């Protein structure tokens, strides 16, 4: 029970010494030295005994072994060194023994297992073979131990530390076997079989390790002085120990492979020896000998040997030696190697068919010759490495082997990639496959196909020079006289050429995949080179292949992949290529040649996307177009993708502009042509409403636009693109939207059967609204687009879905940004719909806020802040199933407190300070007011001040446009009439009577709108009608004071002028919130009069409005103008 802790790393807190005793506590020093390998004694003991920390153990083992490594050289053993080693070992063990004894004594003192988990790993069941049965001897913890210069294996019972279940001396000869991961089985000299079945593979590994170490030391000791020269040839008796002792591997032959494998395993544990083994295997053609053995074994059908060969080969591969891998990849060896690996002993009844596969299935295509022998070889090697990694060793592979294989592959790939870029002929040849002669000329490329590869090969150097000259930066096309004779035919045309072209495309695709593996600078260089050399011509050819054929589909898919890779790495290069194409085409035209109409890459992408019926192609191209046309980069990256941008070529702004120009000139029509197939939404909705009315199903929009899945998918991408363009391409896309009829057709998609398509269509309109562009908005209004949007919202309002969230977001956005005109127009044209939505339990609060916002805009009340705050708790209300009202109540009180200050300050006569304060608060709140007209902030003040006067001279000042504000204060002040708290609290539950409240509100809230924005008689009529309505409604709530209080409060928040006028009579009887009481004192005096008077108010005011309306109409009002074109045109006329 020696230095259990020895190799335990000092940092590892979990690993406690098994037997925590005083003298061990003092040993941390030696612990650390173990890890650094300075104290050899511990180094040996560390690995061999109960170390817990894997890392520490391995370190220890390696260090210890390294120290002795010269002794076990594969070729020769130096006697002198051997002696030294032996003494070292002895010294070491002696030291150990001392320590151990201390430790053992220590542990005996404690006499029991300690609680620490340290020994847990080596929990083991001991079995003895009695007859043919394994008999359980008990559960124990097993340790290696040194006593009297003997290494022992001791298993102490789990239950009782002092009960030793098994204690056996470790012997040199190889009786121990490790099976699976957790079993050690051996036969004692007396013929008894034992098995240790470990709970944990790691524990097993440790003990196994210990056994091996001991064996090694012992064999060293035995042989060190004796055998100083290597034994050559097969030994009469081959055992692992002998091999190890001999220091080199015996020539492989049937029957001893297993021993060899074990020898390799145990020898390879130290780095230096491992290297020598690898070297030996390579120099001695050891693997070839193994292959010979395999052939023999196969002839003899000796499965046993084949299995042994397989695991031996695996062991060799797992040595993870770079040069060894290179070695086995050689043509004459590789097949043999995988052949051996076909016989996996873990699947004894199966045989893999790697050789057959390599022979028959895998073929090496070389559409474009690689003229460099070494590179060719590397290509083959890379393939083999990948085959090893992904197929042959896939199951057995561990992390380090995986890494080694991977790095081998990547090194090769880097070489290949470099070669491809630097070989002047290769890429040129690739590109020329896809170009006709004219194009080659135009681009200033050498028509290389006329040069025979042989020529190239013969004087490679010369060609190099030539190429360099030809691709001189001047880029001037050749005088066109030379090829004037040639009929310009698109390439590739012949069958053979097509076949070759296909292979070239696959080649490029593989190159791109390869390129993505290498490090960033090399990667960027590769893709840039590809783009610069015109690889896109190939992509273009591939993409234009017919989709109806399997091969064509493959081509398109490959082209898509290549394109994506190129776009990811060299976006601006691709754009530049398109522009080059444009220029080339123009030049061609100007030269007066009759050439086939050339389409640009961009145009082709649009065309193929629109035409394709393959979802994968659609998504590929959709994404590619998106990348290509995305002009606004994301905000500075938080994520480490920034690297790519760093290496990318500089953005070429004018180039982007020209690129977009080209797109909008030639491509966009094609791209969005499919929208032409969709009917305008009006033709849909017409039917729709008839039907829904007849069935009277709460205005549910029946999905009527049914399309095939491919079509749906296409429109999905088109809508996405359209949204993106709308947000990014400013005037260009605006012009397109305005000049085409696309919006109305997109609107039809709002009724599509597939919800995600509805969403995509919706997002387009959202993008339009988000731009806050008046022209666009007017356009949408003109075409009645908000109708289907509101319909969609209504339809989705019954459930909380993604779509409904998006819809809500749209209106919330309009409200938050206070897009006055937009809100106004919406309310004017679709008020009924909006109001219906406001009653919806799910969307209600949000749309009520929306309506409120509109009311505020139109009737700026004295205290803006109040309203801005109120919606917050309102908005959050729905979720609180439990306590929410309380929370809200609290909010309310809080806000009240805030507001207390403001009204007090603002109620005195105009005061600049209060004004600024208010501004600050408003912005602080939620930035709800940013686009407020200049009048808004100041008006409340003036209104407050002017209030009493106004009220008094009601009729006389009625021409003032500010009239509504002037009327407001009474409304505000009225709540101040003191009433006591009980009712007040009840009024804090506005949710309860929300539905009834809002419609009532609605009636009263309409008037301000016409006042501001809509001149004309009709408004008067409307007003009148509303007031007539409002009057009957007002008495009814009075019968239910608490409810009314609730309404009232909210109404106050709304600063709803007319409502107050209408209901003023009831005010005195109803308590209001405390803030009013505090804030209102000044006006109180004048209050009672006006409130009373207000009972007759409505009529008067209505008349007033009439006049005001006329006045507004007459004056060159700025506000109504933009809103007119919508629906009011007819009215005015």
């Amino acid at each position, binding site marked *: 029970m020696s230095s259990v802790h020895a190799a335990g790393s000092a940092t590892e807190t979990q690993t406690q010494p098994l037997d925590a005793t005083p003298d061990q506590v003092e040993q941390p020093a030696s612990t650390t030295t173990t890890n650094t390998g300075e104290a050899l004694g511990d180094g040996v003991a560390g690995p061999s005994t109960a170390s817990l920390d894997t890392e520490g153990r391995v370190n220890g083992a390696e260090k210890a072994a390294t120290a002795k490594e010269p002794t076990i050289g594969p070729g020769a053993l130096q006697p002198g060194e051997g002696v030294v080693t032996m003494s070292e070992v002895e010294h070491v063990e002696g030291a150990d023994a001392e320590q151990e004894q201390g430790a053992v004594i220590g542990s005996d003192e404690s006499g029991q297992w300690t609680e620490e988990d340290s020994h847990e790993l080596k929990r083991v069941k001991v079995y003895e073979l009695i007859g043919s049965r*394994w008999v359980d001897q008990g559960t124990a913890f097993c340790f290696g131990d040194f006593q009297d210069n003997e290494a022992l294996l001791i298993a102490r019972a789990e239950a009782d530390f002092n009960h030793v279940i098994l204690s056996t001396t470790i012997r040199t000869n190889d009786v121990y076997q490790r099976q699976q991961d957790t079993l050690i089985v051996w036969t004692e000299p007396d013929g008894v079989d034992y*098995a240790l079945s470990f709970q944990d593979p790691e524990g097993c590994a440790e003990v196994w390790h210990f056994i091996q170490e001991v064996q090694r030391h012992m064999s060293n000791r035995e042989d060190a002085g004796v055998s100083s020269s290597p034994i050559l040839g097969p030994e009469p008796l081959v055992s692992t120990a002998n091999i190890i002792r001999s220091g080199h591997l015996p020539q492989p032959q049937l029957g001893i492979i297993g021993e060899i494998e074990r020898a390799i395993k145990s020898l390879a544990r130290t780095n230096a020896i491992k290297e020598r083994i690898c070297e030996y295997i390579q120099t001695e053609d050891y693997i070839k000998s193994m292959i010979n053995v395999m052939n023999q074994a196969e002839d003899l059908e000796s499965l046993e040997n084949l299995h042994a060969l397989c695991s031996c080969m695996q062991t060799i591969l797992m040595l993870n030696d770079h040069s060894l891998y290179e070695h086995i990849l050689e043509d004459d060896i590789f097949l043999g190697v995988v052949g051996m690996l076909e016989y996996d002993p873990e699947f004894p009844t199966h045989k893999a068919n790697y050789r057959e596969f390599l022979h028959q299935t895998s073929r090496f295509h070389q559409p474009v010759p690689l003229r460099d022998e070494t590179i060719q070889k590397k290509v083959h090697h890379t393939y083999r490495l990948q085959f090893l990694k992904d197929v042959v060793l896939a199951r057995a592979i561990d992390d380090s082997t995986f890494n080694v294989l991977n790095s081998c592959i990547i090194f090769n790939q880097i070489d290949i990639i470099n070669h491809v870029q630097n070989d002047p002929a290769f890429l040129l040849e690739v590109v020329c496959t896809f170009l006709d002669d004219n194009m080659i000329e135009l681009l200033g490329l050498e028509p290389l196909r006329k040069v025979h590869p042989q020529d190239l090969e013969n004087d490679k150097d010369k060609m190099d020079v030539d190429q360099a000259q030809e691709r001189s930066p001047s880029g001037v096309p050749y005088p066109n006289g030379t090829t004037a004779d040639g009929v310009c035919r698109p390439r590739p045309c012949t069958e053979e050429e097509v076949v070759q072209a296909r292979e070239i495309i696959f080649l490029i695709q593989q190159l791109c995949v390869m390129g993505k593996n290498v490090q960033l600078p090399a990667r960027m260089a590769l893709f840039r080179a590809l783009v610069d050399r015109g690889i896109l011509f190939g992509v273009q050819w591939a993409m234009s292949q017919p989709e109806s054929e399997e091969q064509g589909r493959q081509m398109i898919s490959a082209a898509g992949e290549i394109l994506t890779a190129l776009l990811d790495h060299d976006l601006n290069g691709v754009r530049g290529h398109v522009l080059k194409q444009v220029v080339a085409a123009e030049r061609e035209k100007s030269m007066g040649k009759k050439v086939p109409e050339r389409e640009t890459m961009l145009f082709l992408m649009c065309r193929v996307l629109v035409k394709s019926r393959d979802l994968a192609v659609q998504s590929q191209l959709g994404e590619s177009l998106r990348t290509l046309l995305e002009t606004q980069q994301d905000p500075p990256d938080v994520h480490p993708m920034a690297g790519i941008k760093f290496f990318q070529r500089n953005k070429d702004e004018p180039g982007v502009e020209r690129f977009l120009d080209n797109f909008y000139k030639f491509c966009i029509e094609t791209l969005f042509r499919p929208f032409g197939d969709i009917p305008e939404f009006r033709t849909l909705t017409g039917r729709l409403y008839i039907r829904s009315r007849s069935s009277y199903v709460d205005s549910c929009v029946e999905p009527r636009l049914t399309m095939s899945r491919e079509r749906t998918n296409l429109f999905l991408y088109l809508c996405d693109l359209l949204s993106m363009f709308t947000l990014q391409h400013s005037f260009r896309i605006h012009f397109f939207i305005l000049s085409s009829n696309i919006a109305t057709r997109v609107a039809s998609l709002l009724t599509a059967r597939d*919800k995600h398509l509805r969403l995509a269509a919706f997002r387009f309109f959202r993008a339009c609204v988000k731009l806050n562009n008046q022209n666009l908005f007017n356009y949408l209004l003109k075409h009645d687009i908000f109708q289907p949007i509101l319909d969609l919202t209504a339809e989705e309002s019954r459930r*909380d879905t993604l779509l409904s969230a998006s819809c809500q977001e749209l209106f919330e956005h309009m409200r938050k940004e206070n897009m006055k005109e937009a809100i106004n127009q919406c309310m004017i044209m679709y008020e009924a719909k909006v109001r219906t939505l406001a009653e919806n339990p799910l969307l209600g609060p949000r749309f009520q806020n929306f309506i409120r916002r509109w009311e505020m805009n139109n009737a700026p009340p004295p205290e803006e802040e109040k309203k801005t705050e109120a919606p917050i708790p309102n908005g*959050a209300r*729905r979720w609180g199933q*439990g306590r929410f009202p309380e929370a809200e109540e609290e909010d309310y009180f809080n806000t009240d407190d805030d507001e207390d200050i403001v009204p007090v300050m603002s109620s005195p006569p105009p005061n600049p300070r209060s004004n600024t304060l208010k501004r600050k608060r408003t912005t602080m709140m939620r930035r709800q007011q940013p686009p407020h007209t200049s009048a808004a902030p100041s008006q409340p003040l003036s209104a407050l001040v002017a209030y009493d006067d106004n009220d008094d001279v009601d009729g006389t000042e009625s021409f003032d446009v500010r009239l509504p504000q002037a009327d407001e204060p009474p409304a505000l002040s009225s709540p101040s009439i003191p009433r006591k708290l009980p009712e007040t609290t009840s009024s804090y539950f506005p949710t309860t009577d929300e539905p009834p409240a809002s419609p009532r509100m609605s009636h009263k809230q309409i008037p301000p709108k016409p006042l501001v924005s809509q001149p004309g008689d009709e408004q008067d009529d409307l007003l009148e009608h509303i007031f007539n309505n409002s009057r009957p409604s007002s008495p009814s709530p009075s019968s239910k004071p608490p409810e009314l209080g609730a309404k009232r409060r909210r109404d106050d928040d709304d600063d709803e002028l007319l409502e107050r006028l209408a209901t003023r009579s009831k005010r005195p009887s109803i308590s209001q919130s405390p803030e009013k009481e505090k804030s209102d004192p000044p006006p109180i005096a004048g209050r009672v009069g006006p409130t009373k008077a207000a009972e007759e108010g409505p009529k008067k005011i209505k008349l007033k409005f009439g006049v005001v309306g006329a006045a507004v109409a007459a004056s060159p009002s700025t506000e109504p103008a933009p809103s007119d074109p919508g629906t009011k045109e007819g009215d005015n006329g």
Partner: protein
Amino acid sequence: MPSDLDRQIEQLYRCEPISEEDVKRLCIKAREILIEEANVQVVDSPVTVSGFCSTLRTVLSTGMFARRTSEACIDHGDFVDRGFYSVETFLLLLALKVRYPERITLIRGNHESRQITQVYGFYDECQRKYGSSNVWRWCCEVFDYLALGAIVDGRVFCVHGGLSPNLQGIDQIRAIDRKQEVPHDGPMCDLLWSDPDDITGWGLSPRGAGFLFGADITKIFAHNNAIDLIARAHQLAMEGYKLMFDKTIVTVWSAPNYCYRCGNVASILELDDNLGQEYKVFAHAPSVRSSLPEPPSFPLHPPHFTQAQARGCIRATKREEREFSLRI
């Protein structure tokens, strides 16, 4: 074709990838289902909450999968970019979602984004396993539809990252347009990126996105929204879960031995009918102390390792559960 779906689930459960065509169909179906979900999905107890589902075997075998018939599950984002099988993991979750739409709720994590998956390996994995980026593209499409949070009985709020200074109420999350790439700022970003921290108020997040928020913020939020607990993932918790701020917020971490090297244990949170919280802690199956294998039947061919191991694991996890589950 339920049988088809079941086959896919079986296949994915064995960590075998399903065909590209199957992925396509699966994603389309998932999209149909997810689009019907709210930004904050309402879930009824009892429910199992797990976070950071990376190593599907462990999580599925211990918690979710076994319980799928009786209870609902909420899953907390970051399905991808973890481990060697994130494609299979995500697709399995998706398949289960399609199969049992009401039983499983998937919440978006910050790794469910195009940008992040390209950097952290999901993209490469798709590329490697399917040879093209189509699968990745379809998965990303589905990411955009994932819900942002869930609320259990109106009392336990589940979200991947944390709170946002732009959101006072859970209801405000409802008006987020979630169908988009995770933005770099704004409420949606914060929900997926923020972390609780021992500070007061809000702080800048070292992650570069989202915020740090303190106990006060958490409590105010919980109070205002009448919730008892915020359950989130997003951060490694060595003990499997970590309660903070007077138990108003908990980080649930369901990936044992994260990244194959962190050596942490993982947990899932079970909420019973009364929202009682029970954290079931478990460790990475193979490294857990497994019980002893059966005795070898004859010297050279003892019982097969994997069987024994597998049996061991199951027993061990049960034992672990017994030992570690604690009642809060």
